[in-house]
């Protein structure tokens, strides 16, 4: 299949790209791994496609305990980079749990964060979906919703965000650097995403023409010895998460001094588990603390007809991840 024709522009300078991208009907493409699927099935029909993959935004640097990842870095390059592998293994783990080797060679960090939901109602033109066609309703809420979210849903959208990387970045308090014609701004990663409203469900807070230029992670190498990305899926590889957990702990003198937990596959955005984190800090790692974190992780979860199993699964996944990095079961 091919989608409607579009005007193709290869951007060589960021300011050109920003000016072109702000025009009506324009969209950016980098690795294209998600965009091509959307375009081929008619779900994306831009007038203009601005190819930004040659912009010089693929640098990776690590200085003063700040890891800076150029947004156009390929996933495979990031996962293989020593500063990521050694000092931020959680990011490498999450990337290597994503997609396939071929896709990771093409896909970029920025594109990964902005991939659209896998909800089959979003992906099937003609079905009710407020995210694709505002006001059309949500077919998943009373339909096939095994994949659907437990948290942060609205009456009009129960879709999840599919990125593994975003879950790891959320756990590490990453910041997103966004460029626009008006200048540069920084966002906390969760603020990149929006929760759905009753009849609309835009994915991100970015305005037309905005480009993610970099991702910045500060003061995270302290978690390198104890971090893990646990991804549960329906087959062994090349599949989106049913539930995933990014977990990182800092343990000093037998006491948890810092804890980071975020969950994937359960919400419209990477779902930070602040309550669970708070329950861990100041306690000794072990069964009681982990169980408390698991219990708090599922507080407020709202199941639909076919996804209730994700609630005990999430609790179990949080506990398993903590067991894996906590040094005790």
């Amino acid at each position, binding site marked *: *299949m*091919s*989608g*409607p*024709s579009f005007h193709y522009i290869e951007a060589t300078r960021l300011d050109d790209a920003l000016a072109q991208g702000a025009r009506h009907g324009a969209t950016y493409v980098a690795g294209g791994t998600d965009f091509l*699927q959307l375009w081929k*099935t*008619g779900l994306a029909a831009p007038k203009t496609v601005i190819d930004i993959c040659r912009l010089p935004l693929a640098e990776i640097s690590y200085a003063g305990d700040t890891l800076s990842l150029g947004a156009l870095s390929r996933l495979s390059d990031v996962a293989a980079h020593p500063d990521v592998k050694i000092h931020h293994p959680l990011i490498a783990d999450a990337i290597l749990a994503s997609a396939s080797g071929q896709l990771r060679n093409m896909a970029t960090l920025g594109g990964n964060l902005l991939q659209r939901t*896998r909800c*089959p*109602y979003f*992906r*099937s033109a*003609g*079905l*009710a979906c407020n995210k694709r066609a505002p006001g059309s309703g949500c*077919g998943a809420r*009373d*339909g*096939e919703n*095994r994949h659907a979210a437990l948290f942060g849903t609205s009456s009009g959208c129960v879709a999840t965000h599919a990125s593994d990387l975003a879950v790891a970045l959320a756990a590490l308090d990453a910041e997103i650097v966004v460029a626009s014609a008006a200048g540069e701004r920084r966002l906390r990663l969760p603020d990149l995403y929006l929760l759905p409203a009753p009849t609309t469900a835009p994915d991100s807070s970015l305005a037309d023409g905005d480009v993610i230029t970099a991702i910045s992670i500060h003061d995270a190498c302290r978690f390198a010895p104890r971090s893990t990305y646990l991804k*549960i899926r*329906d*087959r*062994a*590889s*090349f*599949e*989106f998460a*049913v539930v995933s957990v990014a977990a990182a702990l800092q343990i000093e003198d037998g006491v948890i001094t810092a804890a980071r937990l975020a969950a994937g596959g359960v919400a419209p955005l990477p779902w930070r588990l602040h309550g669970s984190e708070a329950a861990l800090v100041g306690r000794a790692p072990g*069964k009681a603390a*982990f*169980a408390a974190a*698991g219990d708090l992780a599922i507080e407020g979860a709202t199941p639909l007809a076919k996804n209730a*199993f994700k609630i*005990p*699964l999430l*609790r*179990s*996944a949080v*506990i*398993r991840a903590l*067991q894996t990095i906590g040094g005790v*079961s």
Partner: protein
Amino acid sequence: MNAHSHARYEALLKVTGQARFEGEIAPAGLLHATLIEAPIACGELVSVDAVEAPTRPGFATLVTHDDSASLKSSAATTLIRETAIHFHGQPVALVAASTLAEAHDAARAVRIATAARPAVTQMDQALGAAIAPEMVGRFPAATRRGDVATALGEAELVIRNRYSTQVNNHHPMEPHVVVCWWEGPKAVVHTSTQAIFATRATIAQAFDMPPRNIRVLARFLGGGFGCKGQLWWPWMFWAMLASRKTGRPVRLELSRAQMFTLVGRRQQTEQDLALGFANGRLTAITHDVVAQTSAHTDYSDSTAVYSRLLYACPNVSTTHRLVRTNEPQPVPMRAPGTAPGTFALESAMDEAAERLGLDPLDLRVKNFADHDQETGRPWSSNSLLSCYRVGAERFGWADRQKRKKRDGRWTIGFGMATTLYPAIRQACRARVRLNGDASLVVQCGTQDMGSGTYTALGQIAADALGIPMAKVTVELGDTWLPDGPFSGGSQVTASIFPAVQSATAQLRAMLASMAASDANGPLGGKTSDDLDFEGELIRSRSSNAAERLSDVLARTAPDGLVAEGESAATDHPKLAATGMGHGAVFVEIGVDSALGEIRVRRVCAAFAAGRILNPLLARSQYVGGLIGGIGMALHEQTLTDRATGCILGKSFADYLIPVHADMPEFDIAMIEEDDPHLPGSVKGIGMLGSAGIQAAIASAVHDAIGKRIRHLPIRIEDCLGPACDTAQR
């Protein structure tokens, strides 16, 4: 006949890209076509507004039901002659243009008006309206022998459960494609089909033209699994009509999404099964199947048929019913009937063994059927007991409970089950030509789906004449060749074998007589039963005398020799014995019950399917079948949106099939059988791997975590047990 693991005849062609698949044929002036689909599941096509489309760049033609009026009415033309809409995504028009992008663009400009009626989008909405077909394939749909009710009443143990299986789609790597054109009154049709002669016959009927004016070619296929048959024909006809309207060649290829809706599926089943036992022996079986079919055509797998004959049992009752839904049409899919049917029967046998305190393997041996109890006939050959024994030994079944039950996060479980599939033949012909230089050409109008038919054809002929494979050319996939069998039902090798054998036997007789009749030649005066064919020589068994084949030919038949052979179809009513292939499959799985994850760790399967021509290719068929079975057991499920009837997740990102990381080591044992009833002792093997393993996996899950899962696929939510903090670690 000697078994020989020749590499695939076409291997080099395929890995070097020289094999030309029919969709790659690109005649000058080729137009590209696309289908426009109905957005409703049930109703009527009201109008096709094509005012704007012809103004689009590259537009060539639009084909609709109006154009189909020129076709003869038949099962293959109903969907394109009638405007009724039976399922979501049913094509309502075809657009052809200079490029595929232009065809898509023009198609977007066509306005379709439909009138929707209430749709039945899932089986459970119309269970009360289920109908009882008379036949399931070549078997009666309902059978009864003995007195089931009394036997169940008197049984010491009754296992009674409902088993359900979901819709699966075939998904060969190569989608359906046609490149076709007209040469005056003649049609040339390059298409990816499992049946070139049936395709030709259907075109002849629909277009009311003599078959000799139609050439259908399918020389290479990227898989089929049962879907490259009749459901493709209406859309192929539309491509042919587009070519006739424009006078240009037309190419139509289905999208991956259309492979979910237009070319068939494995039907959903709900199966009520009861087994009665006395003294560990089956005394009663009831197997009642309800399955989905489409609103426009009834189709039923032979799901309960195998419960009539796999085990010895005096009292058996089976039924099949169908629920018509506004969903796509089911067709046979690899291991039709046996895959869903053995899932129920073999799962129940495992449960019975547990309740009886018997080893599941021993229970099967104890209930072995020493003849076909449904027809009363003997088996043509049956080595199922050997499969059980050999498979169990290689797997280490007897010692399984001594093995460790835990490996890190995984709880280990073991399971086993039986598989079977009928051995049948189609009538066909084959031609063998021996050239003057003693090179060989084998011709048969069958297809190679990727399963090894090229190699098998060449090997049978080469072996009979003592000629190396390097000197053999095989031609298939063209209706200009002798009528070959369709590629389905695990029948091709068994069907072509007698035809090729007959042709080569004629050539051997001619050559022997030519060699012996030359009094001055090295074999002068020898009798034909003294002569053997080996190493490009005709050789005397009783002396050292031999002569090169090429010398015999140069002297007596410099232009070479040709012979044709025929195979007869299995004559079911007159059969003296029932032909059946068997297998026993043993699996080891791991379940992480805290996270619900399940992985197959080890598969060992022993198969008995007559004589194996090529162990290398046979292994590939068995392993491929087993992987398909793992997919049905753990991954594959086609979902329909209840509200709209739209199939959801029509892509490989959403419809999961096993990836390499899901595949364990496969240990395959092949038990050779001499079968006095089957030519060459050849039975089909393609279906065997894809049945049985589903029940073996379900039984292994029970062995690991104590849960009986009676539906497929088995997924995370089925295996999710207590959380990590309560489960033992």
